[in-house]
């Protein structure tokens, strides 16, 4: 069948000639070629959503910055993953994330194992230009194994996707809009009272920060384990075929 023939595109990323399948994203192609584009909401194995905008890239001929995780390649495309402008925007995004909630790395259980912290270090965020909102956020420790700390949440939605797509429980979802958005369990019931939660813990381990954590961990001890994701994703793909 003709729709099974693989169409190959050639393009340039950061001046390098690369080739890709027509259905691949810029991010995937970049990763295959050892070009590291910063990401936060993206996680291999989960549906890309383009929510955090950290993977924005410049494309020759376009005055728009496009998220690499959800932009598929085109023939002859010329992509730039690093520029002064991109770095400025990426830093701005991180600064906004830091100012929006209460990210206190020093006393966080995820200190030293945090994607947000790693990105800030990588992109050289040493100062937050925006006033901190210091919102009063809840800590839900009603679950006997896990804790949800809204103070550390960046609304990447990894928990929502892993719970819906891989575990099939769809315990997590978003509530509210804009800066008021929160991730919730069931219909905003305490996590410990959730009927749908299977206690699998996937959400905890895909969470990039200390927003979802295991109980009993002390400061700087919450290293996330994500080895399960590629395996589970592969299983799911095989099931679907």
């Amino acid at each position, binding site marked *: 069948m003709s729709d099974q023939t693989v169409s190959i595109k050639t393009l340039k990323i950061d001046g390098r000639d690369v080739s890709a399948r027509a259905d691949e994203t810029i991010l995937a192609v970049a990763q295959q070629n050892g070009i590291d584009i910063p990401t936060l909401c993206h996680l291999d194995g989960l549906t890309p959503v383009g929510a955090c905008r950290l993977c924005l890239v410049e494309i020759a001929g376009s005055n728009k910055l496009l998220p690499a995780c959800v932009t598929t390649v085109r023939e002859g495309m010329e992509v730039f993953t690093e520029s002064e402008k991109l770095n400025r925007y990426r830093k701005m995004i991180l600064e906004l994330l830091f100012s929006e909630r209460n990210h206190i790395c*020093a*006393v966080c*259980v995820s*200190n030293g194992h945090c994607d947000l912290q790693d990105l800030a270090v990588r992109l050289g965020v040493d100062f937050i230009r925006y006033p901190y909102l210091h919102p009063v956020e809840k*800590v*839900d*420790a*009603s679950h006997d194994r896990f*804790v949800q*700390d809204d103070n550390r949440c960046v609304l990447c939605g990894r928990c929502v996707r892993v719970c819906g797509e891989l575990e099939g429980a769809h315990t997590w979802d978003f509530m509210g809009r804009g800066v008021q958005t929160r991730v919730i369990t069931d219909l905003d019931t305490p996590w410990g009272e959730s009927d749908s939660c299977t206690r699998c813990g996937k959400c905890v381990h895909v969470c990039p920060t200390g927003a979802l954590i295991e*109980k*009993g*961990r*002390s*400061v*700087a*001890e919450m290293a996330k384990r994500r080895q399960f994701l590629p395996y589970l994703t592969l299983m799911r793909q095989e099931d679907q075929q």
Partner: protein
Amino acid sequence: MGKQIMIDPITRIEGHAKISLHLDDSGVVDEARMHVTQFRGFEKFCEGRPFYEMPSLMARTCGICPVSHLVAAAKACDDLYSVQIPEAAVMLRRMINLAQIMQSHALSFFYLSSPDLVFGMDADPAMRNLFGVHAQDPQLMRDGIRLRQIGQQIIELLGGKRIHPSWVVPGGVNAPLTEEHRDTILAVLPEAKALAQRTLRWYKKIMKQFKPEIDTFANFPSLYLGLVDKLGNLEHYDGNFRMMDAAGNIIIDQFDTLRYAEIIEEAVEPWSYMKFPYYKSLGYPRGMYRTGPLARLNIIDACGTPMADDELEEFRGGSTKPVQSSFHYHWARLIEILFAVERIEDILTTKRVMTKHVRAYATPNSFDGIGVTEAPRGSLIHHFKIDEQGLVTWANLIIATAHNNLAMNRGILQAAKTFVDGNHLKEGMLNRVEAVIRAFDPCLSCSTHAAGQMPFHVELVAPDGELLDEVKRGV
């Protein structure tokens, strides 16, 4: 109407404070107060946070003595767990606390107070600082820096980093001691011992020049409070409370620290952000007591290590009465450094400290947890209440320095009455008043400020606002 002299800020202390001296009509000091002008609010903003964050969160109170807060808060969390932690964990925590006492005492003695001791209270402030000491007696300065470094290195070798390690956790510590680190620590201890002894010899020699100060630096009867071990010996990590009165009678002994609220109450004054704890039975302010190195050496039967015990005997000078002058906090501090080195050596030469089992795992079994240790400046109390989810609903910290608040205020009054002539101010008079505070080594919050380099401005203001006299430095 009287006049007022302000010493603002007090220099070479840890944190921010000022002193006000109130003069009567004839220019004689009538009243003295130390105002702690900063507000931290740790007791309030920890509310709603999970209990297991408390050790690291509370450690952020201070960059000099974070280990003490770490240990006290972790002990309070052990109490929330209601578990007995492994023996090796106790030994390791005790050691990191001793290393902390060593480096903090070295900081107080060498960095903050030695300029007064080397040059005298009246010396030119331009010279009376860390750099002046280095120029005058480089060996002394090197000894001080090295002693502090050794203390900090031990903290790092045990806890992974020098300031704010997160190694001490509820239930114990999060990693056992490695043989390599043990050997590294053991190798530097003989040097630390020699440095502490050399400094003690020096101090005992120069101390004689400070008789007027010894006589008047918070030299008055008071109660003394601290921890002692089961034998009544010097104890910094565990143990029970002992309180001694001014005559040397033990009025409280082996008192369970979890019952601290039965003997200690806190008063609040509108002119200071630091509370005023007092001994409940005697009421406020009669229940004034002192804690810290001087109090600890007063209340104990013995240190429990040979070299420190020899020094203790000399410190007490054959008397059974407590040593009253707060000037001798300096001396007591040096003896405690020596003790810390000896005790760390004792612990490291046991096999049990190398046991791999260093952490008890549990979930909270109590809604109320109390942890008490001896910080460099005295008894430190952390008390947390949590809800059924393990979130903190209430916290009370009685910081070592606060115990001494009443005594510090009386101490500056005593020194000011002796040395300050309100009709003609001299820098050296006011420096003596500040030096009383330095002897207590208060840790008013967080960080040390530049030694002798901070702007210092004293104004003598008439009741109608007229500036009568002023002394300035570094402004």
